[in-house]
């Protein structure tokens, strides 16, 4: 049961609070942690809220974007400079949830939730991770694989804003809104002279963690984005994923529809 809720005013204070208790956890909007706390037997003794640590700024300098980890998804959804991310933001929960949920929290959720994390993976985003020993940059890819230390806090994420026509996103859901993912596709496909120069495809709803579909990405590089190349790449997506069965969809169904939604994400139909 909870012994304390700390509401620090700076990151340094938050780190001190974290260090004080082995069973403390950082909380952003509470949308992931509070359900666990209220279900009981979470094993948590203390919560350290980032709500007042001033980690909610969005900075866009040229094509470099830095977003404070405690920035709500709603705020990102209102930032005109991040319009490319809006369809992804809109696909997460409901507007009411997004008034609380933070971008930092999305890195620590369980699939088939965590669609913004899928986007950050596709964008090859970097996270700023603070501990009492200092601050360092860690790729989101690594954080998704290994997590962060018990005493660390993600304070910001940053990425390069994609050029027009290079960003693709689609989330297949059970309902028009407020649904976890059947499959989520986020792809960064910069092109040079009508051919895909580099491909980075991230998938959600397809395994315990968001994954990069490396084989499908390799198959797209050097190709034109047309029905044939997309179909060939689509067939390779499954090789890098391990879809599971849950209340939303079976593993079989996810595997079956993954290439279809991939095609719709890239080609629009």
């Amino acid at each position, binding site marked *: *049961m909870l012994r304390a809720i700390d509401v620090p005013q700076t990151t340094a204070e938050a780190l001190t609070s974290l260090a004080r208790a082995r069973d403390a956890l950082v909380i952003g909007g509470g949308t992931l942690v509070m359900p666990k706390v209220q*279900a*009981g*037997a979470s094993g948590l003794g203390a919560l350290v809220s980032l709500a007042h640590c001033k980690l909610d700024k969005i900075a866009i300098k040229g094509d470099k974007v830095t977003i404070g980890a405690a920035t709500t998804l709603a705020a990102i959804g209102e930032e005109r400079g991040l319009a490319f991310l809006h369809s992804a933001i809109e696909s997460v929960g409901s507007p009411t949830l997004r008034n609380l949920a933070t971008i930092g929290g999305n890195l620590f959720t369980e699939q088939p939730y965590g669609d913004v994390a899928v986007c950050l993976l596709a964008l090859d985003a970097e996270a700023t991770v603070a501990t009492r020993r200092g601050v360092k940059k860690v790729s989101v890819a690594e954080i998704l694989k290994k997590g962060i230390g018990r005493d660390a806090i993600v304070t910001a994420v940053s990425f390069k804003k994609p050029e027009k026509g290079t960003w693709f996103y689609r989330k297949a859901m059970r309902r028009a809104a407020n649904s976890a993912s059947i499959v989520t596709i986020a792809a960064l496909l910069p092109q040079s002279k009508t051919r895909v120069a580099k491909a980075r495809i991230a998938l959600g709803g397809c395994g315990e963690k968001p994954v990069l579909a490396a084989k499908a990405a390799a198959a797209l590089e050097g190709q034109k984005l047309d029905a044939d190349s997309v179909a060939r790449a689509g067939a390779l997506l499954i090789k890098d994923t391990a879809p599971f069965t849950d209340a939303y969809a079976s593993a079989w169904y996810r595997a079956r529809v993954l290439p279809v939604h991939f095609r719709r994400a890239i080609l629009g139909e």
Partner: protein
Amino acid sequence: MQDLETIDTRFFSAEREADLDVVGTTVPRVDARAHVTGKTQFYEDVSFPGMLHLKMARSTRHHALLKKVDTRPAEKVPGFVRALTHKDVPNNWYTILRLIGVEPNDEPVLPEDRVLFQGEQIVAILAETAEVAGEAASKVKIEYKDLPAVFDVEEALKPGTPAIKPHGKNYFVYEGHHCRRIRFGDVDQAFKEADHVIEHRYQSAPIEHAPTETTGCIVKPEGNGRFTIYSNTQACYFTLDNAALIVGLPFNKLRVIGGTVGGGFGGKVDVTVEPIAIIAAMLTQRPVKYAYSREEEMQVSSPRAAERIYIKDGVMKDGRIIARKVTLYVDAGAYSRHSPYGTTKAAAHMPGPYSIPNVWVDAHCVYTNRTPSSAMRGFGVTIGDFALESQMDRIARMLKMDPIELRMLNAYRDGDMKAHRKKAEGCALVEVMQKAAEMTGRKLPERFKKMSSLKPVGSKGEGI
């Protein structure tokens, strides 16, 4: 745009009473103003000083003997007040409809030696706060000895399958029989005479009501020895009657304040929370709240029963159904609750609103180790209709016949003898289909336009 507001009085004009004038008008709800101002009192909107919270330690197994139940680790949690087991229940065995003669009393308030479904409540923990109660409940140590579990209705009825119920059968016994039965005419002979025989299997899944308000109650001991029960039950008298019999109190010692239900749909007609909360209030002389969590509401509270229905029909070329054989299984899960009644309704609902001269029905109420099912919106009838009407559509497709015309041809008329040996009366299916066809712009052939529920049908084949 079709007028859906005014009653079409052209139909059955001889039967209309002149002074009925509410149906067809708009009447505001009496409770709407309280709902929109937040003044409606749901049971959990009431609170009392010194109120205790009750949380259940629940079975993690589908079917198991309880070898050991140890509440000592729970007792150590600060704020723990008391643990209740079956020993604290004066009359532990009940079934909801006992007062209308349904027996046996097959469900324990708290299990004595075994659990029959995953999620079954085992030990009630009382504590000063809901958090402590939940924490303590999670610490109760239970040792199980797994028993073979059965999850399929036909598996459950196979001769070799062990009985999971104390009365020794995996089915509810209807006056000495293993199912509800209808025998009318001779289906086997009729199948021989039919032009076509069409047979299909229909299966539904359990369906959870998922009300936005979870099941719960607060019981307050009063100074005069009575108990006030604030409950969101849909069935205040089921609660009152069963609780009085379980706790061994005269009926007038219990007062139920209810009728305000945050979504019922049949999901709040069981009596699962009030009896143990009353016992807790009796033993502690403090108000007690027992509220289901969302997870409990979804997994533990009773859903609509899954049903498996086999329908075999003998059909003539001209669309007359001359024989219908139905074998129906209701999956009652671990306990009877409303399923025996639902299965009776299912049998009574066969063969659908159609005049069929040869009918054979076996409707079984089957026990499995699944969450006990119970009532939900037309239970016993709704899923039967899904099967019956899917079958009618398949017949129509097979005969390349209009599905509306197939139904009108076979519909009951007033005076027809039903398979239940009762004469059909007040029939209106023909007219409803005529009106629906008109409203949807569907042109019916003349003889179907001329059909009437009031026209007696001698031999079937009217209008052909």
